[in-house]
């Protein structure tokens, strides 16, 4: 496909690479919203160009560095990327887990990130386990003025909540969706009492059904090695990917009635409603359900 005409998707910031991986002089040839792009560092400054048909550099677009990643836009965003003040706190480690390609809609990827009730089945023995499968009531809302989705008071028993966890614990989660393709969770830190660890995904929608997912952790954990932390995150994400690439239809249906929902899906139903109100179409299901999925 060619560059999308979805102005909601275009007028937003998306992470398209890790700063450390795009060292000065190196380029990342990648794709964003159906457009081939070139991302590079010019000294300390990130730059992004549309790639011409011959591979040459075309129109330049805005680029900036936040949270260890290069954020770019093909449009004119009304607001900057999300604010995460935790990145200024002492004692935290930023662990960037790299980009993982997933053949799925960015919206299905974000929705799965918000979902708790799959833990016992997809992340068995790590983030959940039968018979403790119940999802208790939690709160979810759109917070203004930032127009972000927040889900709070999400509690779930977990056999191994984090790389640093020893034994099971009831973890409390808070979820935050700051833009259609960017989401972060705040989770009970198993090491520092009263603290929250952050885990987030910056989804780079390459095409309607293909994404590069940039995952990071911002945690209090001096004991685990960098490798152990990345392995933990990758194990979880590979399990999610096996689901995400097998959901049909590929696009996320935004209208109620296409897929059945229960109370535990409150935050995902709010996410779908929020996307519909924005008028986002990239990565949504548009067709006749039976034509693709019958």
């Amino acid at each position, binding site marked *: 496909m060619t560059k999308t005409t979805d102005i909601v998707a275009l007028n937003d910031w998306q992470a398209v690479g890790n700063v450390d991986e795009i060292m000065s002089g190196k380029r990342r040839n990648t794709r964003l919203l159906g457009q081939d792009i070139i991302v590079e560092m010019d000294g300390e400054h990130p730059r992004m160009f549309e790639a011409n048909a011959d591979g040459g550099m075309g129109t330049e677009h805005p680029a900036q560095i936040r949270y260890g990643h290069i954020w770019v836009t093909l449009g004119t965003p009304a607001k900057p990327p999300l604010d995460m003040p935790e990145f200024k706190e002492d004692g935290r480690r930023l662990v960037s887990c790299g980009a993982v390609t997933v053949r799925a809609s960015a919206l299905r990827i974000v929705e799965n990130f918000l979902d708790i009730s799959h833990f*016992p*089945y*997809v992340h068995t023995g790590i983030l959940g386990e039968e018979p403790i499968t*119940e999802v208790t009531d939690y709160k979810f809302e759109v917070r203004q003025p930032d127009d972000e989705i927040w889900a709070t008071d999400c509690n779930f028993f977990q056999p191994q909540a984090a790389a640093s966890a020893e034994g099971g614990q009831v973890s409390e989660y808070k979820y935050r969706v700051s833009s259609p393709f960017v989401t972060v969770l705040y989770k009970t830190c198993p090491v520092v009492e009263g603290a929250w660890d952050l885990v987030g995904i910056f989804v780079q929608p390459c095409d309607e059904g293909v994404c590069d997912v940039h995952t990071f952790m911002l945690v209090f954990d001096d004991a685990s090695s960098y490798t152990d932390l990345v392995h933990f995150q990758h194990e979880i994400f590979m399990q999610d990917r*096996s689901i995400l690439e097998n*959901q049909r239809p*590929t696009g996320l249906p935004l209208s109620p009635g296409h*897929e059945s929902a229960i109370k535990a899906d409150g935050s995902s139903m709010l996410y779908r409603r929020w996307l519909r109100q924005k008028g986002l179409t990239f990565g949504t299901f548009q067709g006749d359900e039976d034509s693709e*999925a*019958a």
Partner: protein
Amino acid sequence: MENASKDTWYAIGGSSSLYPGDVQPVHLLRVERVVWRDGTGKSHVWHNRCIHRGMRLQYGFVDGDRLACRYHGWRFAGDGKCAYIPAHPDMTPPDDFCVSSSPAAEAAGLIWTTIGSPAGPPPDLSEFSTLTFCRSIAINCAPAVVEAHATATQFAPFAAATPATSFSSRHPAPGVIVVEADSGEALVLAVQPASNVKTHLHILSTAPVAGADIPVLRRHVSAWARQFRWRVENRVDQAHTETETAREPRR
């Protein structure tokens, strides 16, 4: 798929190849289905899509007489109705939480299904006093090409004292080809049109064997099947000049 029709029963595998607790994907006329056998031995053919978040049910697991979705563990009873939702253990799922199902039947050692509404039951193969399911084989060719080759094929009878000298073929039902040797022994070939470029062939033999001879028969027929696949995929029998449609895009 010129010879394929929506309202036709097609074999999708041997009954003996689907054990209780098995869950397998089915591709028929470019649509996806899932076939599974419950703990009581009954087989079910459903749409390959969970009603909750669209997850392919082929990755699910059988829990007694229910199929569980791999994503959230929703349990579906044999009639397709959702019976249990682990996230809300005390909730009774509403009646409209139901996976769509397709007709399924087992006859002549095969599992049959359809994506339409056939007028009658699956093909009647009761004319054969012995019918042994031998194996299924996937062939990377259009169903029409496979059928054309099957109609013209020959085979070495398992039970004949001397090799057969002549062969005849007939279509007792759409998608079913009987190739008969003058010795009286026949191969029954059930064609499953998966897509424009993929065909599954389910192979039965009428050789009068039982007990310990069945595995020997299966090996004998398997050797024929591998050679047949090679001949079809390489167009060795040049009588057929069907043009392959372009490869379907990955979906």
